[in-house]
C-alpha cells in the first residue's frame, strides 16, 4: 500500500524509488513491504539484481506483482512480520507505509529485527505547506502530495522528520543516512540542518541500522 500519488509515466522510475534503490547493495536479499504494483521491487530486481520478496496488503496488488514475475505475498505490516526469522534479509524496505500502520513503533521494531539494514521512506507532515494550512486556514492539511481529507485518510499516524528521528533514537537504531526529497521524489540538493529539512522536505528516505 503505497500512499504517495503516482507521478510517473509507464516505464519511468519514480524519484523516491531511485533514491531507495541507491541505498540497496547489489545482489542483496531484500524484503519490500508495501509493494503496491511491484514497481520498486521490479526496479530493484533489474537494476540492483536483488533477491527480492514483497508483502502487499491489497490482493489485487499482489496478483499484479506475481503476474509480472515478482515474489510477493498478501500480508499486513502490522500483523505478519512476526512470521519472519531474525536477520532474514539484508535490507527491509518500508516505502510510504509507516504512517498507515496501527502500531508504527512495533512495526519499526520488527523491521529492525528481520533486516540487517532498514530503509524507510515517510511523508513529512511538518512541511511548510502543511504548517501554513493549519496556521492560517485552521484546517487539516490537504495537499497534492497528501490528497486525503482527515475523515477518509488511510494515514493514521503522521509524524514529522524530527519525530521519526526521535523514534529511531528510542529504538536504538542508528540513522546511517537521511535524504530529503521534494514531493516529486527528487533529492533536495542542499546540505541543511535538520530543522530546515523538517520545513522544506515533503518526504524523506532513511537508512537505519540496529
Amino acid at each position: 500500500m503505497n500512499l504517495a500519488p503516482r507521478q510517473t509515466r509507464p516505464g519511468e522510475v519514480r524519484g523516491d524509488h531511485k533514491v531507495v534503490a541507491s541505498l540497496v547493495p547489489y545482489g542483496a536479499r531484500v524484503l519490500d513491504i508495501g509493494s503496491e504494483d511491484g514497481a520498486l521491487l521490479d526496479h530493484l530486481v533489474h537494476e540492483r539484481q536483488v533477491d527480492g520478496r514483497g508483502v502487499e496488503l491489497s490482493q489485487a496488488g499482489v496478483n499484479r506483482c506475481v503476474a509480472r514475475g515478482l515474489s510477493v505475498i498478501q500480508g499486513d505490516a502490522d500483523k505478519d512480520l512476526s512470521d519472519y526469522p531474525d536477520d532474514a534479509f539484508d535490507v527491509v524496505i518500508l516505502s510510504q507505509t509507516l504512517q498507515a500502520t496501527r502500531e508504527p513503533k512495533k512495526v519499526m521494531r520488527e523491521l529492525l529485527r528481520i533486516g540487517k539494514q532498514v530503509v524507510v521512506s515517510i511523508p513529512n507532515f511538518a512541511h511548510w505547506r502543511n504548517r501554513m494550512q493549519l496556521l492560517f486556514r485552521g484546517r487539516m492539511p490537504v495537499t497534492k502530495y497528501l490528497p486525503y481529507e482527515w475523515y477518509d485518510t488511510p494515514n493514521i499516524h503522521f509524524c514529522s522528520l524530527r519525530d521519526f528521528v526521535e523514534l529511531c533514537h528510542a529504538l536504538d537504531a542508528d540513522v546511517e543516512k537521511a535524504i530529503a526529497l521534494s514531493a516529486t521524489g527528487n533529492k533536495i540538493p542542499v546540505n541543511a540542518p535538520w530543522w530546515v529539512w523538517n520545513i522544506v522536505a515533503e518526504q524523506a528516505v532513511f537508512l537505519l541500522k540496529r
Partner: protein
Amino acid sequence: MPADSHNPAARDTVKANEAETPSSKLVRFPAEEPLELDSGIRLGPWQIAYETYGTLNADRSNAILICHALTGDQYVASTNPVTGKPGWWHLMVGPGRPIDTDHYFVICANVLGGCLGTTGPATLNAETGAPYGLDLPVVTIRDMVRAQARLVDHLGVDTLFAVIGGSMGGMQVLQWAASYPERVFAAIPIAAAARHTSQNIAFHEVGRQAIMADPNWRGGSYIVGGVRPTKGLAIARMAAHVTYMSDESLHQKFGRNLQDRENLTFGFDADFQIESYLRHQGMTFVDRFDANSYLYVTRAMDYFDLAQEFGGTLPNAFANTKTRFCVMSFTSDWLFPTSESRSVVKALNAAAANVSFVEIESDRGHDSFLLDVPEMFETIQGFMIGAAHARGIPAPGEAR
C-alpha cells in the same frame, strides 16, 4: 437420469486393460528394484504409467512435473482413453498454454494406488496372479512422490524446473519440495494444504463407507467375482462432488429448478436439477474409476500431515530451501480454504523461503483450479517467466 450413450461392459474391459497395460508410456520396475513404502513394506515388482509432452532440452533443465488430483490421471493434456475426453488440464497445459509444451518438457504420471496403469489395487499381484484388491499395502502421498522420483530418475532428469499440482496434486508438490528440495527449482501448490483436516477426512470416510456398504464390494475382491460396487462408488462421488463446488455456484447453476417437469412429484425421483446432475456425475464416474483405488487414494490424502514428518513444525519441512514457491488458493474453496494455504505461506516465511501467494477471486469452489479462471493462468504465466529468468533458461516467446 439423462440417457447415456456409453456401453458399460465395453468401458469395463477398456478400464481393466488400462490398469495393467495402459495406452500411455509405462516403466516396469522388477522385484529387485522395489519401492520402499511408508508402511515399511517393499513393493515390487511395480510399475508407473505416465505421459510426456514437449521435448527435454539438451541440458535437461526444462522438465516440469504435473501432479494430478484424487481422481485425475496421466492424461493431463491428451485424450483420456477411457472417457475419450480431452486432458483434464488442457486449459493449463499444451502448446501456447500457460504451461507451454512447445517450450517445456511436461511429465505427468498416474499416482501410486491409481487405476490407469500405475500399480494400484486393480493391478495383478505377481504372487497370486489375481488383482491385489485390499492386499495392496496402504500408500501415502510420500510414497506417490517416491514413485514419481523413481520415474524422474528413469527419464534422466536431475532437477525439475517446476512441480505443479492442485488439491491432492498440491500435497504432492509440497511433499516433493520437502523430500527433494534440491530437485525442485519452483513449486506451485494450488488449492492445497500441508495436512488433511478433520472435515476433509470426514467427507472421505463417508465415501469409503458408501463403497464398502455396497454388497458388490465383497471385501474388496469384486474384480475376481466379476461384479463392481458401482452404487457405492457413485454415491461416494456424489458426496465428494458437492464438496468441490460452492453454495454460490450450485445456486447459480441449478437454483431450485426442476428437472424436465412442471411440478414436484411427491416422490423420490430426481425432481430437482441438482439431483439429476449429481446422479449423472456419480454414474459417469464409475465408468472411469476403480472403487478400491478410491479407497487407497483417499486414504493417502487422509494420512497426509507434512509437519508430522518434521517434528510437528511445518517450517522445518522447508528449512534452507532454495525452491521458489507460488502458493495459490480460491476465495470460494471451502474444502481447501485459503487459511490452509496461508499456513503453508506462514511456514515458508518462517523458513525465509522465496514465496508468492495469490488468492484468486472465484465463486466456483475447490474445482476452480481445473476451470477457465484467467487470473490463475496469468499468475502462473508470470510466476513461470520469473522462475525461468532466475533459472537462466529462456521463457516461452524468448529466443533460445
